[in-house]
């Protein structure tokens, strides 16, 4: 019984520890892309790449249709 409890605790701790490491080294690629686009809009005022913003807009419209 004691051996199994120790195993249980070890597994759960390992899982939680790896979660901490994961958060620390996880680079938020999607958030970074959004940030990059904001920066590019502000400083260089370039056009959107073909289809990119339009897709995002359609996505947002679909989402707002779904919410009551």
């Amino acid at each position, binding site marked *: 019984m004691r051996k*199994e409890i120790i*195993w249980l605790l070890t597994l*759960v701790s390992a899982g939680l520890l790896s979660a901490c490491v*994961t958060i620390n080294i996880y680079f938020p690629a999607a958030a970074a892309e959004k940030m990059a686009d904001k920066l590019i809009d*502000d*400083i260089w005022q370039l056009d959107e790449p073909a289809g990119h913003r339009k897709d995002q807009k359609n996505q947002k419209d679909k989402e707002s249709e779904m919410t009551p």
Partner: protein
Amino acid sequence: MKKFLLLFAVLFSLVAPAGAQEEAAPDLRIDTPAAKEIRASLKARFAQIKPLLENGTLGVTADGKLAVRDPASVPLAERQNITRLISGDASDKAALYREIARANGHPEWEQQIADTIHERMNKRIPAGWWIQDANGKWTRRQEGGAP
């Protein structure tokens, strides 16, 4: 019962990191006073840089920097100014990426932030600008966006 608990613990340990990972992605801020100052500086200098990009004097390198495409074709009188524009642009960009990483609590993200910005930039570079690939070859961006 004991075996069931054990199985549950194993599954939980595997799932918990994934759950935590999805929560850790808020927006990256670029609005600190320092970042705003650097952005304003880049924007102001870009007013002089833009015509040089449009007429092909300057191009964008593979790692997102400005470079003179054909040094021999630049009039002597303009060389000093152009050098100043290029180095000012480079140092502002480096300072901006460093500041964004710091402002978001991860100084170690500086290079990845730079890479992400360069990737997005590359997709949005307008037709007519010149871009240099990793082998040093210059090509002119055509209508229709990045290949």
